[in-house]
C-alpha cells in the first residue's frame, strides 16, 4: 500500500530541512577551506585558482609561530590549573551539603553569564594595578576563570555517575581514603577528567575576546595574532591557518576517541 502523497511530500520536506541544517553547520568551514587554496592575495569565494603558498606563509609568519607557542603555554597551564581546581570544587559540590552551596555553584558557573570582555577588562585593570599586565600570569588566570565551569561540569557529571558503593566497598576491604582515591575514584573518573581537560584546552586555545585585553605583544596568543594580522592584510593566510586549526583539533579528538572512546570523553552514558 502506498502512503498518501501528502505524507511523502512531508517526508521529503523533512529530509531537505535536515540536509539544510547540516549544510549550514558545515558551510563556514567549507568556504574557509576552499578560499585557503586561492591563488590570489584576496579571500574570495569561489576561488579562482589553486595554490598552497598561503599555508607556507601561515607557517613562516613569525607572529603566528610565537602566538602558537604562547597559546600552548597558556593553554597547558590554564587547563591544568582549571582541572585541579575544578575537580576539587566538583568533589565538594557532589559530596557535601553546606550553607551557601547554591551560591557557590552560581559563582563558579558565572563566567558562562558574564561577557568575556568584562572578565578580560577586569583582570587587565587589576593586573595594571600591580604592574603585572605584561606577563603570562594574568593571561593564565583569565583563562582559568573562563574554562573552570566547563571542567567542573564535566567532572561533576562523572562524579554523579560514580557509584558511591564502590568507594564503600574499597573501604570495607581495608583501603584507607588515600588508597581508595587513587585506586578506585580517580581511575573511574579518568574519562571525565580527560574530557574536562580537553574541553578546557580547546576553549582556552581558541579564546579571543578576553585574551585581546590581557595579552601584550610578547604574550599574544594565536587568535589575537590572527586578529592583528587581519587588520593589516586581507590575503588567504588566515584561511590557511584556519584549515590547520580544524585539522589539528579533529586529530586530537580522534586520538582521544581512539584511546578513551568518544562516548566516555563526552560523558555519554550508553544504555546496556
Amino acid at each position, binding site marked *: 500500500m502506498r502512503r498518501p502523497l501528502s505524507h511523502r511530500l512531508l517526508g521529503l520536506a523533512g529530509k531537505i530541512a535536515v540536509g539544510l541544517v547540516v549544510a549550514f553547520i558545515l558551510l563556514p568551514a567549507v568556504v574557509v577551506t576552499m578560499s585557503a587554496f586561492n591563488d590570489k592575495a584576496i579571500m574570495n569565494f569561489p576561488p579562482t585558482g589553486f595554490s598552497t603558498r598561503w599555508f607556507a606563509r601561515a607557517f613562516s609568519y613569525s607572529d603566528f609561530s610565537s602566538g602558537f607557542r604562547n597559546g600552548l603555554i597558556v593553554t597547558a597551564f590554564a587547563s591544568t590549573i582549571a582541572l585541579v581546581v575544578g575537580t576539587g570544587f566538583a568533589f565538594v559540590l557532589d559530596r557535601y551539603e553546606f550553607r551557601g552551596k547554591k551560591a557557590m555553584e552560581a559563582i563558579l558557573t558565572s563566567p558562562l553569564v558574564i561577557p568575556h570582555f568584562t572578565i578580560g577588562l577586569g583582570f587587565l585593570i587589576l593586573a595594571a594595578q600591580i604592574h603585572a599586565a605584561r606577563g603570562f600570569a594574568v593571561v593564565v588566570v583569565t583563562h582559568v576563570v573562563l574554562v573552570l565551569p566547563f571542567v567542573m561540569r564535566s567532572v561533576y557529571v562523572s562524579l554523579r555517575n560514580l*557509584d558511591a*558503593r*564502590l568507594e*564503600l*566497598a*574499597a*573501604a*570495607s*576491604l*581495608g*583501603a*584507607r*581514603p588515600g*588508597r581508595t582515591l587513587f*585506586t*578506585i575514584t580517580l*581511575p*573511574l573518573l579518568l574519562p571525565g577528567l580527560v574530557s574536562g581537560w580537553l574541553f578546557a584546552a580547546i576553549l582556552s586555545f581558541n579564546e579571543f575576546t578576553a585574551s585581546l585585553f590581557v595579552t601584550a605583544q610578547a604574550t599574544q596568543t594565536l587568535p589575537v595574532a590572527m586578529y592583528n594580522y587581519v587588520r593589516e592584510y586581507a590575503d588567504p593566510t588566515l584561511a590557511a591557518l584556519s584549515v590547520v586549526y580544524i585539522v589539528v583539533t579533529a586529530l586530537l579528538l580522534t586520538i582521544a576517541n581512539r584511546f578513551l572512546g568518544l562516548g566516555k570523553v563526552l560523558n555519554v552514558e550508553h544504555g546496556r
Partner: protein
Amino acid sequence: MAAERLHTGTEAPAATSARVGVQIDGVTKKFGAFTALHEAWLKIEQGSFMTLLGPSGCGKTTLLNLLAGFLEANGGEIFVDGQLMTETPPYAREIGVVFQNYALFPHMSVEKNVGYGLAARGVPKREIASRVADMLALVKLSDFGHRKPKELSGGQQQRVALARALVIRPKLLLLDEPFSALDKNLRGAMQVEIKEIQRSLGVTTIFVTHDQSEALSMSDRIAVMSAGRIRQVGTPDEIYRRPTDRFVASFVGDVNVLPAKLERRLDDRASVMVGAVRVEVPAGTVDGLAPGAAVDLFVRPDALAIGEKGSGFPGTIAAHVYQGSHVDVLVDSPATTGGRLLVRVPGTQAPHRWPVGQAVGVTPTGDAVAFPPEAA
C-alpha cells in the same frame, strides 16, 4: 525474682563472651528528625548466621551500614569479637560486605577485585595470588580470573563479590539483600551455596533481607524488625511457631486471624475461646489482660485441620489451590476476621475428601498465639 534476673543478667556476658561474635548495645541512628533505628540490642553468636528481616524502611539496612562503619551511630556501642567498633573507621574494621548490586570494581579483573583487600593490607604478591586462587576455587570461578566484572553473569558477579569479601578473612560478613538481583532459579542455588561456604568457613554472618522465606531457610537466628525496632529475635522455628509480637506473626508466613476471648491464664499457658472452641496459647503475649478480654488468635494454615461438620469452627469449603506437596484449602467461615480460613493440607487428596461446597469443621491442631487487638 528481680534479683535473680539481675544476677543472671550481669553474669551472662562474662560466661559467653568468648562466643559472642557481635554485640549491639542500644544503638540508635537518627536522620534529622527521623529515627531510623531505636536503641537496638542484639547479640550474635560467633560463626552463626543471623538474618535481619523486615519490610523496606524498617532500619535493617541502617543497622548494616552502622556495623560496616558507613554510618555513625547517634548512641550505643557495637562490639565485634569483643572489640569496641563504634569509633573505628570502616577500613580498620575487618568486616566483609557483599552489596546488593555487588559493587565490583568495573576497571579491574576478577583477580584484582578479589585481591584488592589483600593488596590494601600489604600482603606479598605471591601470597595474594595463592589466596585469590584458593578463594576463586571455593566459589567455582577458577577459570574467570582474567575477566572483567561486566563479562560475567549475575550469579558469577555475586560469587566474585563473596570471594572478595571473604578472602580478607573477615571477623564478620555482611550480606545486603544479595539475592534480589538474581532470577528465581539461581536464587535458590546461590542460597544453598552461600550457606555452605559460610558454614565451612565458620564466619559470623549478618544477612539483610525483606524476603521471609529466604530468612527462614538460611538463618540460624532471625531478628525481625519494623519501624526502626527489633521486634523479636529467635530461631526460624521460634519466629514461625511462637511469635511474641503481632507484627512478627503477620509478617512471617501466612496466618489466620480469629477474634477470640481470653478465658483464663495458668502459669505460662492461657486459653482463649473462639466461639465455643477452646484454644491453648502461650500466656506471655496476653500478659496483663483480664479474663473475658477480647484478643486476636493467630493460627498458621499448617496448624489447622479439616474435619467433619460439628467439630471446631464451622465452615464451608470455598476453593482448593494445588501446591504440589500440599493443597491450600480456602474455607468460608464466620469465625475469622476475613471471613475465610486458609488451611494447609499435606498430600494431594484434599479436593477429593473435601469437595467445594461441603460443610466442614476446622480444628486447631498446632501452635497458636493470641495478641491484644490492634488499637483502633
